[in-house]
């Protein structure tokens, strides 16, 4: 089982393992997929590239047996197949690594991997552990079989998902935006695993909208737009990410945003000696008119820092002054506008209530502007929110939609629309473009740059490119403290950032332990 024999059955390159033939799928009046034909080959990576809502996930859900096509056929090794359930697709060797992991948090890695496997009455925990360890080692992964899934990082959880499929001998693996939740280092190790899998003859479908990633891992790229495949290209024939972007969006995308200088004004945030919850003394200032990018590998203090700044966690030691007030004062009498706006990373949990409609979600933080006495003025709020839906191009533009029905990108746009409506003076934006397509990310970037005229922005991100594109200064978080604070126009300092993120800077400058 650690040695899947696939190499000897490798077909000639002209013979695809999966052929999609004119697949179509509609949801109500929305045509999610229209006459899509694609081929998936063994030992190669097919990337599905497209903006949010282009139909990538729908297409792959049909292949994975989650959805049934309205018309069209799927051929496996030349024979027509019908996957009416995910079980059938799994049995045929097609497995999907979902964006939202399907893991039981309260169980161990081994239990999750072997869940649902017919293996007799008793579990045999020792042999389960051995099986999983062997499997993980075969693909160069390092997860402990007896670790509780709840204790794992996102990257490790994803490895468990992959191991689940490998254990089931899946030969066609579909990854739905796998890097959205990963740190750059974790993404690299995912790519290494993917290469190992294609090396063993497995076919991989990689859904993404990150151009560099697609270019670095894919053999073939299919670009989807509004439910149709608009382009099918070999990755080798694409010279650069911007060329790929041009083909994808149909217009040239400026990966470099235009940043007009804005004069900086008063200090809106001052942090001094902040400690506790994993923080080891953080000091910085943020002025109105500037964007301070905080980069770092996840888990180096971003969470406690952001939570302290946004009033979710009482600072244990040190001071935080927001808009000239101390922490306790600031959060004891908050107004709804011209104050602090928090754009959290967790869009579905912290930023919105999934089962409330868009209007109620809009009112979550802006209700202060729509009250008269004890009464909520829903009509003016509705009118205002409807305008925002159109202004920010949130789809569907219907206030009665529930938040959980929105795609990640649209939900983020809703959160931003809501928060910018409050005319904030201080914005804490956490991974604001994570999971967004290029066009949407560009919109978000420009919105942030615009907002900076009125506000100081703390941009907490794992994406160095984003930080470089937007920030006036960049702070590097490592192990709960600021490993460095670099001006954007200091190229030498910027070169050091990746080293600082890895915690290597201190070793380079001093050999003391």
């Amino acid at each position, binding site marked *: 089982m650690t040695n899947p024999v696939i190499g000897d059955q490798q077909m000639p390159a002209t013979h695809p393992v999966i052929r999609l033939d004119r697949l179509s799928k509609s949801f109500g009046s929305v045509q999610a997929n229209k006459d899509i034909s694609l081929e998936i080959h063994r030992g190669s990576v097919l990337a599905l590239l497209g903006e949010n809502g282009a139909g990538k996930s729908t297409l792959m859900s049909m292949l994975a047996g989650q959805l049934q096509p309205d018309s069209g056929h799927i051929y496996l090794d030349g024979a027509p197949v019908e996957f009416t359930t*995910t079980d059938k697709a799994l049995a045929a060797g097609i497995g999907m690594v979902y964006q939202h992991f399907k893991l*039981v948090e309260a169980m161990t890695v081994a239990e999750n991997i072997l869940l*649902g496997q017919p293996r007799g*009455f008793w579990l045999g925990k020792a042999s389960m552990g051995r099986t999983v360890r062997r499997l993980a080692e075969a693909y160069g992964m390092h997860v402990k079989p007896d670790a509780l899934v709840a204790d794992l990082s996102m990257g490790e959880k994803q490895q468990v998902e992959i191991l689940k499929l490998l254990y089931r001998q899946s030969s066609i693996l579909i990854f739905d935006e796998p890097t959205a939740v990963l740190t750059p280092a974790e993404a690299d190790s995912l790519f290494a695993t993917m290469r190992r899998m294609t090396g063993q003859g497995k076919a991989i479908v990689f859904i993404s909208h990150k151009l560099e990633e697609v270019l670095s891992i894919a053999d073939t790229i299919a670009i989807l737009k509004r439910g149709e495949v608009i382009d099918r290209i070999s990755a080798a024939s694409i010279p650069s990410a911007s060329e790929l972007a041009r083909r994808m969006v149909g217009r040239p995308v400026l990966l470099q945003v235009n940043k007009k200088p804005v004069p900086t004004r008063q200090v809106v945030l001052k942090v001094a000696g902040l400690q506790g919850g994993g923080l080891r003394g953080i000091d910085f200032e943020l002025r109105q008119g500037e964007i301070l990018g905080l980069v770092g590998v996840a888990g180096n203090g971003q969470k406690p820092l952001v939570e302290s700044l946004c009033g979710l966690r009482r600072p244990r030691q040190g001071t935080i002054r927001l808009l000239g007030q101390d922490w306790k004062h600031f959060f004891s009498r908050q107004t709804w506008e011209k104050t602090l706006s928090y754009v959290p990373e967790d869009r579905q949990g912290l930023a919105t209530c999934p089962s409330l409609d868009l209007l109620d979600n809009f009112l979550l933080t802006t209700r202060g502007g729509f009250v008269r006495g004890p009464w909520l003025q829903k009509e003016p709020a509705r009118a205002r929110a409807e305008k925002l839906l159109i202004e920010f191009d949130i789809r569907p533009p219907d206030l009665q939609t529930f938040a959980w029905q929105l795609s990640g990108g649209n939900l983020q746009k809703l959160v931003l629309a809501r928060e910018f409506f409050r005319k904030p003076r201080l914005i804490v934006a956490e991974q604001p473009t994570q999971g967004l397509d290029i066009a949407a990310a560009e919109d978000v970037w420009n919105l942030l740059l615009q907002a900076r005229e009125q506000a100081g922005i703390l941009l907490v991100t794992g994406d160095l490119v984003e930080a470089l594109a937007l920030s006036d200064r960049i702070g590097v978080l490592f192990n709960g403290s600021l490993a460095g604070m670099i001006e954007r126009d200091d190229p030498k300092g910027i070169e050091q950032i990746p080293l600082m993120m890895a915690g290597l800077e201190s070793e380079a400058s001093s050999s003391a332990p």
Partner: protein
Amino acid sequence: MTVEILIPLLTAAVISGTPILYATLGAMFSEKSGVLNLGVEGVMLTGCLTGFLVAKASGNPVLAFCAAGLAGALTASLHGLVCLVFQGNQVVSGLALTLLGTGLANYFGTAFVGQAAPGFTPVPIPFLADIPGLGPVLFNHDPLVYLSYMLPLLFWLFFTYTRFGLNLRATGEFPGAAAAAGINAVAYRWAGVLVGGFFMGLGGAYLSLAYTHLWTNNLTAGRGWIAVALVIFSFWRPGRAVFGAYLFGGIMALQLRLQAFGTTLPSSLLLMLPYILTVAVLVFSSLHKKKTGAPAALGVNIEPRD
């Protein structure tokens, strides 16, 4: 307190803790699959009455005990029907089940109030029953008590070391993941509801077949609710359920004894004791915010596909 008082009290604690233990394990089994059944009280009562009636009619207490379990499973199947077929609210359905079970048992049972039926009698275990102290407390009981000694261990083995236990827990934690792994999550929830109901019914039957051999209305007297609380108190672990059940059994026994001794405390206050303890236990349990072991999808219905 002297030994002469302590040993009978502990013996009584085991006896009155036993039905609670059965019911707690039943409720726990159901909750492990993700189905919260607040109808324990009602399910126990139907089991209680069925056990009594079958024993009276057949004269065979073993048959009556099994029939009570089946009656419990049957009653709980209504809960399954509401929650697993029609996606009804589990809390509301459970409360309704309590009312229904209590009503049914009273309606059909009133005619038999004061009547007796054959039941189980104590069978001392040779040698073990002669151990001073421990012997009379643990090993001089009816067979149903001995059976209940083994159950927590069996439940624990089942949950922790068997494939079916793993599947059941996965269904209670994350039905979507269970389904993705090829497990029929709805079937496992049915199993949770029915097996859970079976053991709740057994708990009820203990009251009419061993605790007393007489029928009176509302024999359970709130033990079903205590079982619901004990599942939380035990952090969904069968071993801790034993401790909780005997603790409550002890309080109930103590309360009876204090009344018998003629204390000056008002009896209504004494009767409150178990429920005050229930509240205390729930407060205590909820202080442990992390790692209580509650199944993550407890009370959350499985949305049907499409």
